[in-house]
Structure formats: C-alpha cells, structure tokens
C-alpha cells in the first residue's frame, strides 16, 4: 500500500530525516513511536506531501508519488489528521466535512461518517473554531474519512483530549481499521493505546528508524529503553 524507501528530508539546512524505510500493507495498522523532536511529524508530512523529500522514494498503491503534490496524494486515498487537528476555524462543521468530500472528488458526505461520530450531526452548523478539543479531533478524523481513504494518517490524535473522548477515538479507530478495512499510520505517545491498535510498530530516534517489530513479539520495556526513558 505505502512504501517509503530511503527517504531523507531537510528542515532549512539541517537534515531531520535520514534514509527512512517504512512499509504499510493494505488494511494494516502501523504505529510510529519516538520522543518529541525525532522527526515523526516531519515523516508524516513528507508522506502526505507537505514537506519535500530530499532523497528517496515514496510509493502509494504501487505509484511513485515522491514528487506528487499533496492534493494529488489526498485524491489517491491518503487521509491525514494532523497534529493540532487542522480544523478550519471559520468554516462550519458541515463545511469542514464537505471540504473533505469535495476535494477528494467524492460525492455527498457518506452516512457512515456520521455513524462513526454521531456528535457531529448535532454540531453541523457550528464554526470549527468554537468546538472543544475533543470535538475538533473527531471532526478532523471524520473529515479525513469523508474522502474514503485507503490509508489514514494520524498525528497524535489523543493529544490534549479528555480521557472519555480518547476512549471514543480509540474505538472509532478500531472500527475504521476493522470494519472499514482502512490502513492506519499512527503517531502516538500513549503507548497503551498505540500498542493495542498496532499490527506493527517503528521506533524513531534522531531522524532514523532504529527499531521495528510487532507488539506481539516485543517486550515493551525494551521499547521504553529505545524511547529514551
């Protein structure tokens, strides 16, 4: 589904990603771990197309998208939920959702989106900017799902969210992966959650992938060590 081969990226003049290799199979759920500032967000942005790759190759669904602009990657089926949620503050909830649908050249908003997030139908005429953090996060995920992506990329979706909502989001992601068969690439610091949802994980440190494996045959304490705790 997604293959990242030897991708490097620079920020200004300093290199923040160094020859990253990463793959995700269709329907698979992969977690990217690592401390703050190791380049996880930059890697996601590079995959989505918001940050240029200085070297290497990114392929999605068998197509080389390394040089494709972000909007084309979105239309090919990459859904993105950024850190900080990226809600358009002056657009209403339904406009935020319509944007997800329209931009990816899909028709009306599919019903299952409201099924996933019932709270949104009640809020549909509110401005994005006035929603609570949890509501915004749900909207961000829903908006990404409207375009019916084949890969959903989430950057710390539980950051700053109340525990009760975190639980809802967890359940929703399980459903997205389980019932809707959408592949997931998740950056998460909440290890329990990450562990429970991941088929495989990668660990990053200082711009490199330093470890990968599956939660089933890895020892969490070893991972903790890698995370620099």
């Amino acid at each position, binding site marked *: 589904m997604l293959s990242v081969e030897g991708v490097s990226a620079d*920020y*200004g*003049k*300093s*290199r*923040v990603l160094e020859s990253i290799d990463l793959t995700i199979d269709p329907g698979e759920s992969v977690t990217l771990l690592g*401390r*703050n*500032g*190791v380049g996880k967000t930059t890697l996601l942005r590079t995959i989505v197309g918001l940050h240029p790759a200085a070297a290497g190759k990114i392929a999605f669904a068998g197509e080389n998208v390394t040089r494709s602009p972000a909007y084309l990657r979105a239309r090919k089926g990459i859904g993105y939920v950024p850190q900080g949620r990226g809600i358009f*503050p002056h657009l209403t909830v339904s406009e935020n959702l319509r944007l997800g649908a329209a931009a990816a050249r899909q028709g009306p908003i599919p019903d299952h989106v409201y099924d996933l997030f019932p709270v949104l139908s009640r809020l549909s005429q509110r401005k994005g*900017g*006035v929603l*609570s*953090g949890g509501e915004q996060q749900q909207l961000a995920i829903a908006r990404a799902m409207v375009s019916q992506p084949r890969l959903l990329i989430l950057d*710390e979706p*539980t*950051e*700053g*969210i*109340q*525990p009760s909502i*975190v639980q809802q989001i967890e359940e929703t992601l399980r459903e997205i992966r389980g019932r809707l068969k959408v592949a997931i690439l998740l950056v998460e*610091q*909440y*290890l*329990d*959650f990450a562990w429970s949802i991941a088929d495989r994980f990668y660990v990053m*440190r*200082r711009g490199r992938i330093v470890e990968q494996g599956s939660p089933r045959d890895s020892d*969490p*304490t070893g991972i*903790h060590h890698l*995370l*620099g*705790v």
Partner: protein
Amino acid sequence: MTSPLLSVENITVSFDGFNALDGISLQLMPTSIRVLIGPNGAGKSTLLDAIIGHVRPSSGRVVFKGRDITHMEEYRIVRDGICRKFQAPGVLESLTVMDNLNLAARRRRECWRSFSRGVAGGTYEQAERVLKLIDLAGKRNLPAGQLSHGEKQWLEIGMVVASDAELLLLDEPAAGMSHGESEQTAALIRELSSQHSFLVIDHDMAFVDQLDAPVSVMHMGRMLKEGTLKEIRNDPQIAAIYLGRDKEASVA
C-alpha cells in the same frame, strides 16, 4: 521568609471564547526549579506566554520581583529578568553562533547604546563561557541557520542561560536530545539553579526526575496538583488523566 520571585495570580487567557488558561495561580521562589507537566494542550506553553507578555490575560495578574508585569511590554519584561526558550528553536539564522550568544548576553539592550563596536564588560566572557557549556565552541563562527536541529536546541538554551536572567522559562529543553544529552541538560539546570530560578516544561519523566524539583500538573487550562514527582505519580486522579496513559512514566 523571602518573598516569591514570581507570582502568577488567577490568570485567565481565552481564544475565541475558549479558555486556554482558566484561573491559574503559581508561585516561584528565588533560586528554585519548578517543573510543569501535563498533556499537550493543557495550557503550559500559554502560561509561559502569559508570563512573558506574549499573550495578555483577560483577568488576573503576574507579579515579578514584587512588580506587576501583566501589561508590561515583552522586551521590558525580559530586561526585568525573565528569559524564555521557545518550543521550536528560535535561533537567529543569519547571525553566527557567537553573535547569537553575544546578543543574548548583552546587558545594554537599549538602542542608543548599541553603536559601540566593542562588547560591553563581561558580555563577551559570559558568551564564551556559555559557548563552552553548550559545546559549540567549534562552530562559533558558523551561521546559526546551518546548525542541526539538536544544536539549535542547545544554542537556544545557551542563549537563555547567557541572558543571565533571574527567571528562566524553558519550554521542552530536552526535546530531541539523547538520553545522555538530556542528563547533561538536567545537570546544567540544577547547577545554574544556585543563581537562577527555572520554570521548565517537559514530557520526559526521566528528565523531570533528574531535575529533582517540585512538579505542577496542568490539565485543561487549570492547575491540577503541585507536589514532588513521587507524590504526583501516586495521585490516582492524575494517574487517570495523565500518567495513566503514559505507561513509560510509571515504569521509569
């Protein structure tokens, strides 16, 4: 009993009707360290913003050295003795490493005193000292824009230290550092705390532990609890909202 260096009194900051800070209070004594933890979005950075005048609270006040600085201009607050390191490294890219430090170390920040060519007494030595401290002596004449991310992080800590302010606000100083580096940073902060006060934000519990200082937990714009790291860890309420989801912390 000395009076507090910094006293944040009942501060509220709101954006678009959403309260990023909701009646926060905090006191900091001279030559002490305080650690702020809490989930992202809890309002920690906003608290630092409010202290240094970057955002203006809608109510409450900030008192520094007995003086109300709530509505003071940012640069005056800094001259008064508060310096801050931002989360994203904010080094001055076209200046050299040494010039970055020199600017931070300068005492004479008024415009009319900036035309002398020589560096004012002590500034240069201070900058030299910090340059060694942050281990960038080899790159002193390199434009800061050419440093790596980690080096920029170091340089920015260096700039804050060089400013010799009485109160240093550090927003995630150890982010992006290796284990050893963050240990070094913690040691540096502890050492400097004999002369300065620190307000430190970090997520890394190991780092927090090394700082060996009282911890305040923020959540949803409020102060949840203050205490030692140990007390915090054992607090069931905090475990539920914060540590509970961060297994690594309890393991460490």
